[in-house]
């Protein structure tokens, strides 16, 4: 028997009982709609999650924290062994650099606020307070994702004597000649839209960083600065834009080589015995791609370092999301199961009606395989039709949800995304194909038992049946 003939008979039989066929198809439509919409919501959620993580930081990097500082998502287990932790110094960087999947290294070195005093203006009139000084490689602004709001970022040529300010730092300079409120610069917006300027000009003035001498003590308990040879005069170049991770606004940046020099000078001035090479506070390893992150992170933690990565956080969140998706999918699957039962029911009824027809076909020499195939096709076709209509309707539902529910929906699901509200429901092509294949398979499975029943009908009984 030609496959074409079987298909044609299959369609004729479906058409013969239009009403019943449609009702069964509607069952599949509801089931497949439920599954597609649920999965599309799951996909929407995981995309929203990825967007959110991307706004937090780069997914292809591993961050290593030095000293006793733990990472943002530190598990605690590794930081309990701080005593054994290896030093995060230049020799460590050499090891990281040699790692296969590491493309680049972005180190940071924070200077403790007690180590230096930063001033500006004549007679050190303006004093910087409450500000972290961070050494970064001034050739790596792009890798750090830092951009200038004012001024021009320093480069290879002027990095040694340049300063870059975080957005709020210029206002942290106080006027030592004044007292009370007047000593502080306030950032307030003026009626004409501009803001009040700080005491210093962050992109034109010179600034002095002086190392503190802890061996001597002033009357008020503070320590004097070291004086000649322990001072650095730097030029203000630029102010950074607010960054998404809120790393920069309250930090002042100098080149990392200078930071190391300051560390060493401090140790010398204060006679620190057996001073070791300066340690980095944080080193970010940029990996080749997202798949190599795991391996790099493992290699680093195996060395005893504290390392975290967004990829790891993502994995954890994905795991939790997976559970939600599974629950949603399970609920949807129930409606598909109901649809499957209704297909089986329809097929059994249809075979009951056509017992005689099947008997005649057998007597006339139709292969039982062909009979089975005809009924399987019918059931599969009901599934496929339901899948097609279900997909079209799901697209509609998806569009409606995306345009109306938008941000409200993602907030309800506890996902916050930066700026773009994102799509609540995403239906990629693979989901469409999967839905079609799946609903067809559901049809075939539902038709399996009825088809076998049809095959078992005794030809003689069937034609005797008047």
């Amino acid at each position, binding site marked *: 028997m*030609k496959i074409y003939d079987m298909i044609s008979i299959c369609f004729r039989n479906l058409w013969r009982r239009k009403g019943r066929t449609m009702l069964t198809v509607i069952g599949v439509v509801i089931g497949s709609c439920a599954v597609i919409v649920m999965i599309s919501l799951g996909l929407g959620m995981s995309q929203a999650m990825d967007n959110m993580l991307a706004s937090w930081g780069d997914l292809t990097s591993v961050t290593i924290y030095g000293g006793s500082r733990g990472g943002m998502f530190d598990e605690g287990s590794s930081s309990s062994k701080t005593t054994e932790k290896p030093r995060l110094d230049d020799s460590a960087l050499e090891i990281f650099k040699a790692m296969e999947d590491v493309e680049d290294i972005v180190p940071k070195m924070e200077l403790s606020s007690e180590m230096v005093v930063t001033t500006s203006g004549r007679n050190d009139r303006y004093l910087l307070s409450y500000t972290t000084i961070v050494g970064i490689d001034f050739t790596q602004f792009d890798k750090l994702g830092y951009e200038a709001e004012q001024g021009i970022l320093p480069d290879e040529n002027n990095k040694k004597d340049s300063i870059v300010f975080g957005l709020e730092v210029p206002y942290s300079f106080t006027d030592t000649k004044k007292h009370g409120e007047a000593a502080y610069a306030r950032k307030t917006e003026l009626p004409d839209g501009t803001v009040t300027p700080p005491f210093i000009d962050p992109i034109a003035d010179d600034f002095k960083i002086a190392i503190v001498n802890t061996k001597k003590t002033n009357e008020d308990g503070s320590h004097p600065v070291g004086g000649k040879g322990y001072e650095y005069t730097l030029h203000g170049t630029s102010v950074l834009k607010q960054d998404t991770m809120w790393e920069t606004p309250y930090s002042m940046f100098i080149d990392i080589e200078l930071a190391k020099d300051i560390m060493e000078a401090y140790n010398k001035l204060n006679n620190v015995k057996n001073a070791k090479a300066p340690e980095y506070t944080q080193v970010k390893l940029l990996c080749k791609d997202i798949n190599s992150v795991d391996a790099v992170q493992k290699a680093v933690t195996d060395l005893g370092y504290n390392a975290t990565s967004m990829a790891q956080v993502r994995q954890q969140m994905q795991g939790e999301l997976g559970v939600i998706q599974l629950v949603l999918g399970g609920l949807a699957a129930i409606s598909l199961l109901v649809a499957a039962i209704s297909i089986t029911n329809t097929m059994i009824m249809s075979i009951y009606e056509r017992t005689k027809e099947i008997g005649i076909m057998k007597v006339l020499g139709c292969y039982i395989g062909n009979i089975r195939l005809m009924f399987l096709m019918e059931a599969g076709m009901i599934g496929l039709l339901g899948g097609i209509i279900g997909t079209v309707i799901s697209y509609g539902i998806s569009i409606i949800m995306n345009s109306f529910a938008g941000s409200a929906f993602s907030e309800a699901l506890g996902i916050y995304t930066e700026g773009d509200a994102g799509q609540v429901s995403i239906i990629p092509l693979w989901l469409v194909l999967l839905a079609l294949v799946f609903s067809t398979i559901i049809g075939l499975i539902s038709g399996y038992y009825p088809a076998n029943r049809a095959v078992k009908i005794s030809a003689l009984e069937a*034609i005797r049946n*008047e």
Partner: protein
Amino acid sequence: MAFITVKNLRKVYKLGKEKVYALKQIDLEIKRGEICCILGTSGSGKSTLLNMLAGLEKPTRGDIFINGVNIAQLSESKLARFRQENTGFIFQSYNLIGQFNALENVGMPLMFKGYPKAKRDKLAAKMLKLVGLGKRLRHRPNQMSGGQQQRVGIARAFVAKPKVVFADEPTGNLDTKTTDEVMRLMVRMCRKYNITLIIVTHDLEIAAYADRIVHIIDGEITSIEENTSIYSPEEDEENTSISEVKST
């Protein structure tokens, strides 16, 4: 060896503890191209014998050779192939498919053989013309009279040029005049294509068309009678194609 050889055949139905001997002991030989009538009263086992010859039922005991193949031993799927290649079937109650028109009904055996639609329709149309339904190709069974339906059934049985056609009371639902037409038609077809016809009936009139009449009583062959006054289609050569006027 004869075209059909039945040896030592027995069929017993078990109804609970009771045994019904539908066929007690049957031995029979039928030649190629022969028209053989199985004649007997109701309940004598005619249909049972025919169904077993057609491979629709398994005998309790014994062998049935058709063209050298013991069909009593064939598996279900081999039987399907055997039926497809060798047999045609005509039923008392026509057994046409209601949703198919005459052309499609007649084309069914060819469809199972895998003929493409165009070829099928051509052969089926030719066959329907031969049985005098050339103008009713697109009619559904419920748009035709009993006689017309049975002629569609005959066309269907012969369309694939089988080696043997089985007919179980093919005229049981028809009036005398139509019975005559239908019988002549069947005989003519068999003669034309050298097809063996085995026809079951309790009607002596019908038996008159056969070459041989097998009398069966209570599941046993009592006598086999050679028919001398055979109807020969050559007699009404002029009348070969039953006209449309007659059939309506």
